[in-house]
């Protein structure tokens, strides 16, 4: 199991974007989502975030996400960047990442 090294943020709060902050914890995945489309897409957005975290085998994470109507590709991309930053990794595996997001 992987552990986050630090608190990390990616994205903005502009329209069509997602701002996501990840913080390491000891208790398991918690997702706090703020979205105008929570009712229609809340579960879907959470599932996308969880999917990306699972790719990295991360479970002990508190997620705070502010969604401004982001598309799936944006949600995934922002989450992946936050994960890399949180892990202190810079060796992006583009081929793999592209396969997830496409």
């Amino acid at each position, binding site marked *: 199991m992987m552990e986050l090294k630090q608190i990390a943020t990616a994205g903005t*709060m502009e329209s069509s974007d997602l701002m996501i902050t990840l*913080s390491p914890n000891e208790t398991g995945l918690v997702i706090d989502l*703020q979205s105008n489309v929570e009712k229609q897409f809340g579960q879907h957005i959470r599932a996308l975030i969880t999917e990306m975290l699972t790719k990295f085998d991360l479970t002990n994470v*508190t997620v*705070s996400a502010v969604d*401004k109507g982001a598309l799936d590709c944006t949600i995934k991309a922002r989450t992946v960047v936050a994960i890399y930053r949180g892990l202190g990794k810079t060796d992006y595996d583009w081929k793999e990442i592209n396969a997830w997001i496409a």
Partner: protein
Amino acid sequence: MMLKRIWLGLNQTETQQWQALLEQAGLAVDWQVDYTIGLFENKQLIATGSVYANIIKCVAVSNQQQSQNLLTQVVQALLDDLEANQQTHSFVYTKPGTADYFTALGFKAIVTTKQVIVLERGFPNLNDYRQQLRQAKQAGQRIGAIVLNANPLTIGHEHLIQTAVQASDHLYLFVVSEERSLFSAQERLAMVQQIANKYTNVTVLPTNQYLVSSMTFPNYFLKDRADQNLARVQAEVDATLFAKVIAPELAITTRWVGEEPLSPVTAIYNQQMAHVFGTAIQLQIMPRLAIAGQVVSATRVRTAIKAQDWSQVAQLVPKEIYPIVKGSIDDGIKTNRNGGDHGVQ
């Protein structure tokens, strides 16, 4: 539209526009800011926001320009600046009516009074702090709390702690975490821990930013210049957070404070605590310990340090604390440091 930094005081035209915009929005013109940005259209300021440490404040959007979501741009720019400074956690101090805008940007309300709402975003947050408190919780009926800055710890503090311990099953000592004092938070914690070690029923805790900080109580750190109306509002925020969040977590029944006859801000703080606590928490105001006709205070110790009057310092601080004080000052780096007049107790 152009987003840029406003250099308050340096650029007169923009500073005047900034003041006018805040007044129009019904906000106090608060000069205690580190960084201010403005959104301009045709050289007219249409939205602004500022940051002080990790506190977002003075956020205003011109009446004619609302409904364009300019707030997001302003807050985003401020968050970018905070992030560039490695601040992963921030607060907003604003009027209750505007809370919804910030909630939509991912901020969470942590304390509300009639005039003020404080929200936070990022980590570590109030939940993490509450968890830390829960882990430190001890059983008992009479549970006391003292909030102290201990800058440095004096025989007055020691006396207050002693009195409180005798009347409590357990006593929590909250040491102000903010780094705005002559002695570092780490040094101040160590001093308080030294005294706490003498007892089996005393726990030392940090306040993080949730008690007497520039977030809950900015004016506390500017006692000499403080606006008393503003201090009243802020003291209520601080007392409310203590009563609603911190005290219930540890089942605190009594808050102990030292009397401060000379400081109007402290007097206001004590009044507001009594008012907010009501019957839920007892407020015990203890007279100050005096030697040679003068009350013992951390301010007096700092004055003696400045005058290099070490025999006076030795009289005013407990003997196990003296080496910490002397050692810290002898490190030499302290001479340039801000003395900040704010010994909480």
